[in-house]
């Protein structure tokens, strides 16, 4: 898939996944890379930026039989950002979908 496509939606995907439930970094990477291929390490600069912007917060939690893991959770600000991004995405996807259908009908 086109790299710029993915980069644009990666932030939205992270916010949506964290809106479902809190996740730790590795889990987040796996859940996204099941859907499309990403450079796994790039999720961490993104998470750090989202934390700096106040969209996500972090806490440490013990895991069964291992060291503590850093969990990420969506803040109220983050929910607002997510909703805006999802609305924009839906509007965009609908517009592009309409265009594609029109082209197919003619072709």
């Amino acid at each position, binding site marked *: 898939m086109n*790299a*710029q496509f*993915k*980069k644009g939606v*990666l932030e939205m995907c992270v916010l949506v996944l964290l809106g479902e439930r809190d996740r*730790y*970094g*590795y*889990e987040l*990477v796996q859940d996204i*890379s099941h859907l499309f291929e*990403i*450079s*796994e*390490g*790039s999720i*961490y*600069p993104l*998470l*750090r*930026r989202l934390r*700096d912007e106040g969209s996500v917060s972090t806490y440490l939690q013990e895991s069964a039989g*291992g*060291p503590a*893991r*850093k969990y990420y959770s969506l803040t109220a600000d983050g929910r607002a950002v997510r909703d805006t991004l999802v609305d924009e995405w839906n509007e965009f996807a609908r517009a592009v979908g309409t265009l594609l259908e029109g082209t197919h009908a003619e072709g």
Partner: protein
Amino acid sequence: MQKDEYIRNLRKALSRLPESEREDIIADYEEHFSVGVSEGRDEADIAGALGDPRSLGREHAALFLVREAEIDPSARGLGRAVAATVGLGLFNLLVVLLPFLLLVLILILILVIGFSLACSGPLLTGYSVLSLLGIMPSGLSAPPLAGVFFGIGLTSAGLFLMVITGWLMRIFYRLGIRYLRWNISVITGKEVL
């Protein structure tokens, strides 16, 4: 690449950051490795999927320095943020370093002009007052009284320019930070992502 080598390369790329921030970033990647290994993946596989540690480290460093420059504005902080962002790719010499240097040059130029005007005003006024009082010979083609007011005008214009420069600097600083952040998000991760 095994975990130790990966972390070592990452740490090297983060060497300019304060230790607490550096170790905090590294801890995320160490956790990533340890979870991966506990799920049965081997280190080389995890390292490959994570992507180049040097470019990840440079991205982290640039993001951190831009944020520092935003929280605690200073010429030095901005310089470091710009340098770190320029280091992300050759292309940034053209779209970050060059505009930055031009902008600094223009602002310094306006400041110098403002300063010179502000300084020359009192000289002109003083000279004109002295020639009005007959202490100095009137060497100006204009009447001395006009010189007095023209001098005051020059000073005001100079001070005004200096104030404007300060104001422009603050605006450009804020916009510059936003631009750097946008640049980092666009320029990084394009190989694999």
